[in-house]
């Protein structure tokens, strides 16, 4: 799952600053070929070589899924993060070559739904932009409720409202506007699916409210990408490979394994897909789990998701 054949070689054709935080990047295939089509909600990993560090961060594709001529992503600058978004904002320029992973969708529309109710917070708008384009061409009913801090930070709100005035609703924090969630979730026709993408707090709010109102879990979809968080360096013994490696402050456990040539599986690198799940053989210390994948009973020293989670303590042995 990690060879060069899995990469799309692209060239940056546009870098558009949308507001203080968000910049859009557009890519075309470096060989002039069409890019693979994708489904609304898909993301791609963007490979960033920043000095001797290689990062692979997931970004939602927000161009038209049926248009293979180019891809677009929108990147929110995160100065406190490990530098992936800062690298894109500061270093990547039009004309640069980048490698992308193939599109992967962990936030797909349920095509059996009669109606799609979309709830977005901040940069969480991006997967919906592509989903709305998909529904436009295949003809599905949708309704978007989009919360942002200010009008200026409501990325793409104007374009969405211009295209779909009756279906797009905007709520601005600085105007004290709030999504009327309970009312929304109570008044939907049967067969409606709800989708939420945004900050953790918003996702929890929607999940809890939907649950309390009796929504079936299979009709509730969410996505939150977790950028790996920086943290204290730690040491790991890899039992299968027989290596002991150090994970630095600004790299993830998965990145450290890759740096040491350990072939570890991965897919989303954001704690959502489960592909990199790894068994813990022994430990003495505390886990900092940041994933959405593991069951509660696995978090207590049984398993770890190396793409986003960390460890603090004297000894950690993994089955890898």
């Amino acid at each position: 799952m990690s060879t060069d054949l899995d990469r799309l070689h692209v060239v940056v054709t546009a870098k558009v600053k949308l507001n203080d935080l968000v910049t859009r990047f557009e890519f075309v295939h470096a060989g002039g070929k069409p890019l693979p089509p994708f489904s609304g909600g898909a993301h791609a990993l963007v490979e960033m070589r920043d000095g001797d560090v290689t990062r692979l961060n997931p970004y939602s594709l927000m161009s038209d899924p049926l248009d293979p001529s180019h891809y677009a992503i929108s990147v929110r600058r995160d100065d406190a993060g490990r530098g992936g978004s800062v690298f894109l904002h500061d270093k990547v320029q039009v004309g640069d070559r980048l490698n992308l992973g193939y599109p992967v969708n962990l936030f797909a529309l349920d095509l059996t739904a009669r109606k799609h109710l979309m709830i977005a917070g901040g940069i969480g708008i991006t997967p919906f932009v592509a989903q709305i384009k998909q529904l436009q061409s295949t003809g599905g009913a949708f309704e978007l409720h989009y919360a942002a801090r200010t009008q200026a930070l409501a990325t793409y709100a104007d374009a969405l409202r211009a295209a779909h005035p009756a279906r797009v609703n905007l709520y601005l924090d600085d105007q004290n506007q709030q999504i009327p969630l309970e009312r929304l979730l109570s008044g939907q026709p049967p067969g409606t699916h709800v989708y939420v993408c945004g900050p953790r707090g918003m996702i929890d709010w929607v999940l809890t409210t939907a649950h309390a109102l009796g929504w079936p879990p299979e009709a509730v979809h969410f996505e939150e990408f977790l950028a790996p968080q920086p943290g204290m360096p730690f040491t790991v013994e890899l039992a299968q490979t027989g290596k002991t490696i150090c994970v630095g402050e600004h790299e993830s456990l998965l990145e450290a394994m890759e740096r040491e040539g350990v072939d570890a599986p991965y897919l989303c690198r954001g704690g959502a897909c489960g592909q990199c799940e790894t068994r813990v053989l022994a430990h003495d210390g505390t886990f900092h789990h940041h994933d959405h994948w593991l069951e509660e009973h696995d978090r207590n020293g049984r398993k770890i998701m190396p793409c986003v989670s960390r460890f603090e303590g004297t000894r950690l042995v993994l089955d890898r």
Partner: protein
Amino acid sequence: MTIQFNDETFRDDYTFRNSDWAIRRFPFPFHEDSYMYSVNMERHRGGPEGSVYAKRFDVDEHYISEMRDRALVLAEDPLRCQSLPHMTLAGWDLLELIMVNKSEDYPDLFELDRDGNKWRWINKPLSIDDSFIFMDEASLPYGPMEYITRQTQGDFAVLDQRENNLWMDAGMVTTQADWSLDFDIGMNFFEWHAPVPLAHEMGVFKRALKFLLNVQQGNPARRLNWTMTVNPLLDTSPENYHKWGVQKTTLTPENLGRKQHLRVELQTFYRLPRSNALVFPIRCYLIALEDLVTIPKWGRRLHRVIRDLPVELATYKGFIDNRPLILDYLSQFDDGLPTSPGVWPDLDSEPPLRR
């Protein structure tokens, strides 16, 4: 090489034959002298030149006759091809996948010209030359899935992915080993696998599903499955069991080598881009035991596998009653010599049969 297409039947007079070329490239499924269910999946990224793994959709000498047989099955029973309403987008994805791959892999047989959404598809072996609008169903004689799978060997299950499961919401199934699309339509991965013995308890399906949910665009996977079929029948469906079930009682020591076939399915898995569905092509290859044993290694090994196969599997696969007869026949081709590891014939290195 250019393929010489056979003119043959898979019913009535059964004129189906494998050429020497087809025998040597047969996808023999046993890499060792015994067999048990496992999560036997690997990437589908080519294989030795000329092998059935080399191309993404293998075309062989049986192509034209297999497509003729499919048309006969569909004429009698249109429910062999079904697509629930939300699966049309996946049908277009599948049509594109097959047309692009076949025209790239077999440029002398298939041509695809694309100008935006105006497409022209030329299928020389079947004398088809159609122009149509991509994503416009009215521009094709059938729905997109049916159109392209009437021109592609193998069955197709098209699975919708939702609720962390796969749902059999569309398919073209005319060459199946005793299961029914009409029965399974709308079922999920665990429901349609319910009849399989032992594998559930072994955790095979849980792990297999986890793998499948993560099959990604640009990174297809494959596995082999196998069973035994009396007479070279493609359509061994429950719907027609009354026609083929009785043929299992016609085996004799004299006709067994000719009538008993090993049936191998090359199953592949592709993520479909626009719909995020998964397509599961199930390509059936048949070989008469008398042809199979011309490869000494395969003769030795098949005898040992069939002899030691757990009763549950031989029963599920439907040959428990004939197993003694089959073993009598195969034992003539097992001289007890060791076999080399792996599935390949190894004709140059494996010794001929010692009598």
